[in-house]
């Protein structure tokens, strides 16, 4: 069995840990430069505020009621790490899947004990870090996603849901789940599936895998196997949720060489940038993570991640590479043998939301157009001549690093001068 552990309204929950007064209030977190809403408390969702909604378009009544905060990526990155470390107490198989989600392997545990374990995990993460999480157990990743969703939305599960490959709960959930809600099924694929009468996850599960592979893709075939309870998907083949892009890979052999890590990061950023532009998105922040092999217990263990916010949302690989390099520099430690590095692009927004900020000049607009043309050319060449036909060298120095973040809370966990102050 594998568990998907997902932090509930993660950014908002992080803010609430350090400011309990936010409990029960509609709270939203804004993307960099306070552009769009990228995280919402349940109360804000109830007011009808949508993910990605532009802040200046929110009705005044909502702006008055809600607490809207600038994103505090230093804090979220640190809290994310604390959650991951806590999860590692429960299993050595912890794979970070996004800033607020991890897959945790529970192979070999008695299935009958899993729900109790899940409750203890939830309670421990809540106590140690203050972050509420939901836990979905299932034999495969795709089903674990479904289980997690149920754990979060259906109150009788109390935050922990276990789905077996067969069983009335699995059947009932899949029957009412639109196929487009499934992990890995894109909206366009969903539209094509609807044409052949497949609307729900259950209908997809019952479809012929081989035929679906021919008609659609090998990924869709794998999703069908996963829905039937047979693991077929590796984390690294999966395109992440629409809100983020992750590219990571394990090294063929462990390495301590910073040059190898930098090169791996460069490649990951290049791929992530392509994906980003292909889906027409921009990213607000880049998360970089490294880890050693958690199964080599005789080796020193290290696992670290950091989030580097961008000055403004971007889809330029050079911006991403610059941020990722800075991130890697900040977390790389000598003396460890690294097994895996990865990059994650967070809080994607549609590039139609491309914002001009007040300090933008005609010059920067011209820069941006040049950057768009350059990236489009690079992507085209790489498509036609093969991956890495054109590589980007050292990223340019970016001086415009000042973020607009008037409503940002203190970086409580990463700056001495911004520690939480408590009245005695």
């Amino acid at each position, binding site marked *: 069995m594998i568990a998907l552990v997902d932090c509930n309204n993660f950014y908002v929950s992080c803010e609430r840990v350090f400011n*309990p*007064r936010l*409990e029960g209030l509609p709270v939203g977190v804004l993307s960099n430069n306070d552009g769009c809403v990228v995280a919402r408390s349940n109360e804000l969702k109830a007011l009808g505020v949508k993910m990605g909604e532009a802040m200046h378009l929110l009705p005044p009544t909502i702006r008055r009621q809600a607490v809207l905060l600038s994103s505090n990526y230093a804090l979220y990155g640190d809290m994310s*790490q*604390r*959650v991951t*470390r*806590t999860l*590692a*107490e*429960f*299993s*050595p198989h912890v794979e970070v899947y996004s800033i607020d989600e991890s897959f945790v392997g529970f192979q070999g*545990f008695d299935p009958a004990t899993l729900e109790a*374990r899940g409750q*203890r*995990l939830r309670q*421990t993460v809540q*106590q*140690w*870090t*203050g972050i509420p999480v939901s836990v979905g157990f299932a034999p495969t990743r795709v089903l674990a996603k479904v289980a997690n969703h149920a754990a979060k939305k259906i109150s009788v599960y109390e935050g922990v849901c276990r789905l077996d490959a067969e069983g009335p709960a699995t059947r009932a959930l899949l029957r009412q789940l639109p196929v487009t809600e499934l992990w890995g099924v894109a909206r366009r694929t969903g539209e094509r599936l609807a044409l052949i009468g497949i609307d729900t996850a259950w209908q997809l599960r019952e479809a012929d895998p081989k035929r679906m592979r021919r008609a659609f893709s090998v990924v869709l075939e794998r999703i069908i196997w996963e829905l039937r309870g047979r693991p077929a998907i590796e984390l690294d083949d999966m395109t992440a949720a629409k809100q983020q892009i992750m590219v990571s890979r394990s090294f063929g052999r462990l390495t301590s060489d910073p040059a190898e890590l930098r090169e791996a990061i460069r490649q990951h950023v290049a791929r992530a940038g392509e994906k980003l532009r292909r889906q027409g998105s921009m990213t607000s922040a880049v998360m970089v993570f490294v880890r050693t092999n*958690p199964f080599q*217990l005789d*080796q*020193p*263990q*290290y*696992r*670290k991640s950091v989030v580097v916010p961008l000055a403004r949302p971007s889809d330029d690989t050079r911006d991403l590479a610059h941020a990722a390099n800075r991130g890697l520099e900040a977390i790389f*430690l000598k*003396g*460890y043998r690294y097994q895996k590095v990865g990059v994650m692009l967070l809080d994607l927004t549609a590039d139609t939301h491309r914002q001009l900020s007040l300090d933008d000049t005609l010059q920067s607009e011209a820069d941006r157009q040049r950057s768009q043309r350059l990236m489009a050319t690079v992507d085209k060449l790489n498509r036609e001549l093969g991956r890495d036909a054109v590589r980007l060298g050292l990223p340019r120095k970016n001086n415009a690093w000042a973020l607009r973040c008037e409503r940002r809370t203190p970086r*409580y*966990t990463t700056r001495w001068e911004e*520690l*939480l*102050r*408590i*009245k*005695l």
Partner: protein
Amino acid sequence: MSWISGTTADVVGHAASTAGGVTQPLLGSGVRAGFPSPADDHLDRDIDLHAHVVKRPASTFFVRAEGDSMHEDGIHHGDLMVVDRSLEPLPGRVIVIAVDGDLTVKRLERVGQRTYLNARSPAFQPIPLDGRETQVWGVVTHVVRTLPGGQS
């Protein structure tokens, strides 16, 4: 300073040890299997104050004290407090607690069936917890105060 006995929370599930702090490789943290080597006694390492004070990095936070109500417990205005959220709020411990939404630091005390937050200062009355909305945030385990000359 560390008058609190270092009790730890319940061991949870199947645990693999993960790295302590950034500066502390596992090798040096005393995980041993089999017989201790006699050479161990002569193998001195740097004394790592961070590792001594931060037993559980995932659950340990540094916060700053404001105000003087905890004088008698040796906490002064401006002190750095080390707070471990994984510890249980047992009577006698100094805890960080949200009372009606505001975080404060007090010693937890139990008299008969009732629990109080005690300020340990004659100027402050004990606060009974009954009927208030409270949420324990963590247990203060250490205090670091900078004395004259100590500023960097």
